């Protein structure tokens, strides 16, 4: 029997079984009923036509998750999340979409206009009916402005042996790679949210760069087919083989809405000998209104393993969205002379809360890490930098430099810094610098006297404050990110 028929049979058997459990769904249906249980996980796996080992892996994760408790150590306040009151599988076409831009929230459109996004792309971003599967070219349109160019590049990537596709596709295309590396950096037992993701992830990106290949362009989800379906439980896996290089862009400067409040993504990076991965994120999920109602809860686990000697992983993030951000992109510096970097700008306004930072685990000799964190708080927002620098006994000559700066706008917000430093090797050198400042009335008046409106002045001052981090972004992203910094803080002064 051909594999596809077999799978179809399995699915049929499964869907009939589902009926027994009291909910109706058939293979044509694109939405699973609310709730989280083994059957839902089997359903997701069947929908993706996954091999047995992956289903088993999901189920093991689910078993582990049931015994876990949601973490309460972050400095975040939110009501209880009912994990049973959510859909864990829904194809995008089933969601109610606005028929045209007229039905889209005018506030959202205003922001798109400020970012200079063309109308057609606004429609895609806002999820207007009929625009599914089209790719908004935001952030990359300065360089690649048409789908045909994207296709050309895709052909070029294939020629070089680079695999860049949806992870559900990779499961079929290169199962050995997925099986070898999935969960190898973030095990399915890692933490409450990562474990949940392992059980129910729907899609995400997969990248493999072969030995000695330098990926000739920034990879972004823009090039991925069907990228509209990023989903709530995204799973990304990037493998850079020996001596390779890749720069990956995630996210979008334009604000995206989603009716799913809970987001729990996992990103795993693996860098082998002499390989470099640069991972840049701009996160601008809907932060909720001024009172914090309706925003996204973003609980993300991102971790990179520098497995090989001289390998390097660099995280750059600009976090402006979400009501709640819980995120610590980390590096496990296992290979000798490996390098981990974390550059972060986090902006919280109104009632947003962010508890974010990084972990640098030094295992190999002469491993080096750099942390530059810039936190900006305005309105009634609260922000915490939480960072761990850990030097293990064999990490001879390890070095870390941490710089952690907070900027406050107004007198009702808060910034907190919680560094954890653990060193078990006497030769290690660890430096931590932290500052907290406010945008002064003097600075604002000075800028206004030079002709800048108050909001532009704030934007300029904050962009200056974040410069060290923004310059790490790929150029086409950096320009958008600068605008975003200003927009995120609108209404924060005066």
């Amino acid at each position, binding site marked *: 029997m051909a594999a596809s028929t077999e799978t179809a049979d399995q699915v049929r058997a499964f869907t009939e079984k589902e009926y027994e459990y009291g909910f109706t769904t058939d293979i044509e249906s694109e939405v699973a009923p609310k709730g989280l249980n083994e059957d839902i996980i089997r359903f997701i796996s069947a929908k993706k036509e996954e091999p047995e080992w992956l289903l088993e892996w999901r189920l093991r994760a689910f078993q582990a998750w049931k015994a876990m408790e949601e973490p309460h150590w972050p400095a975040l306040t939110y009501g209880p999340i009912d994990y049973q009151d959510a859909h864990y599988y829904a194809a995008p076409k089933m969601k109610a979409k606005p028929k045209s831009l007229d039905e889209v929230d005018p506030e959202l459109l205003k922001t798109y206009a400020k970012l200079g996004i063309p109308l057609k792309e606004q429609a895609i971003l806002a999820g207007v009916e009929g625009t599914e599967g089209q790719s908004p070219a935001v952030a990359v349109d300065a360089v690649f402005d048409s789908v045909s160019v994207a296709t050309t590049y895709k052909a070029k990537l294939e020629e070089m042996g680079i695999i860049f596709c949806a992870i559900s596709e990779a499961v079929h295309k290169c199962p050995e790679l997925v099986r070898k590396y999935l969960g190898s950096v973030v095990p399915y037992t890692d933490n409450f949210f990562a474990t949940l993701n392992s059980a129910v992830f729907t899609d995400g990106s997969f990248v493999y760069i072969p030995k000695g290949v330098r990926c000739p362009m920034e990879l972004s989800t823009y090039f991925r087919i069907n990228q509209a379906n990023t989903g709530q439980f995204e799973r990304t896996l990037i493998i850079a083989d020996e001596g390779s290089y890749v720069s990956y862009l995630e996210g979008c400067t334009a604000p995206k809405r989603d009716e799913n409040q809970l987001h729990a993504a996992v990103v795993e990076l693996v860098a082998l000998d002499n390989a470099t991965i640069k991972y840049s994120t701009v996160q601008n999920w809907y932060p909720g209104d001024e009172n914090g109602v309706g925003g996204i809860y973003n609980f993300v686990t991102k971790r990179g393993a520098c497995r090989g000697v001289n390998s390097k992983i660099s995280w750059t993030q600009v976090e402006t969205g979400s009501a709640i951000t819980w995120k610590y992109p980390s590096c496990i510096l296992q290979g000798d002379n490996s390098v981990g970097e974390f550059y972060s700008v986090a902006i919280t306004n109104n009632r947003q809360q962010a508890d974010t930072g990084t972990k640098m685990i030094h295992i190999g000799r002469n491993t080096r890490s750099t942390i530059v964190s810039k936190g900006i708080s305005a309105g009634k927002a609260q922000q915490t930098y939480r960072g761990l620098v850990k030097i293990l006994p064999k990490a001879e000559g390890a070095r870390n430099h941490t710089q952690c700066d907070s900027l406050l706008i107004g007198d009702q917000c808060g910034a907190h810094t919680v560094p954890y430093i653990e060193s078990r090797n006497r030769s290690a050198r660890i430096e931590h610098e932290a500052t907290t400042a406010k945008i002064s009335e003097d600075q604002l008046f000075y800028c206004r006297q*030079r002709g800048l409106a108050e909001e532009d002045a704030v934007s300029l001052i904050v962009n200056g404050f974040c410069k060290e981090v923004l310059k790490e972004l790929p150029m086409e992203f950096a320009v958008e990110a600068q605008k975003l910094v200003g927009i995120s803080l609108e209404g924060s002064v005066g």
Partner: protein
Amino acid sequence: MIEIKNLHATVDGKEILKGIDLTIRPGEVHAIMGPNGSGKSTLSYVLAGREGYEITKGSVNYFGQDLLALEPEERAAEGLFLAFQYPVEIPGVANTTFLKSAINAMRKRRGESELDAMQFLKHIRAKTKQLGMTDEMLKRAVNVGFSGGEKKRNETLQMAVLEPKFAILDETDSGLDIDALKIVADGVNALRSPERSMLVITHYQRLLDYIVPDYVHVLAHGRIQRSGGKELALELEKNGYKEFGVDEAA
């Protein structure tokens, strides 16, 4: 023409300006001299539109416009420039970025087209040349790590680039040694023109040796007590502010 009439202003309920009258015609350089606490800086801030000052009486007619009705950035776009006594640091923002944002914000407000990178570069190069300055200062973050002299030179450069109709120089000489003072004064003098009015605020006469004013006014107790030509400055240098009821030794 700038006409200040019977201007009264309070800070935290305390009256600092108690009826200022002053008329400045295009091309004229007026100096305001006065002891500490006489209201010199208050006058410059009130004219530039800083918050925290309440205008209780009087008016300022600025080339036919009611200056006091405008926001600080609108006044800037209308050509009012204040060279700060203590220029402010803006970390991470290069001088060029700052100036380009400033000039284009003003142009936009005036309905003029914004300068692109090349046009701006050409403009700014012409100005540094006019002032005999190098490009080095342009690349540095606004006033960050600048010496006192560099900060004041930077203010002069900004004035040159923004080409104001009316420039207020607030204690430009404070914190400068004589060499730095000469450099800054040379810069200011290079920017004197028949279309540009200046109001030079200073405590000491020595600045006026280098920036020679057309008129000198003595400000004390919130009012202009006496006006005259440049020789009035010399007289003040000799006799101090005693005759205006101010004992600076106290």
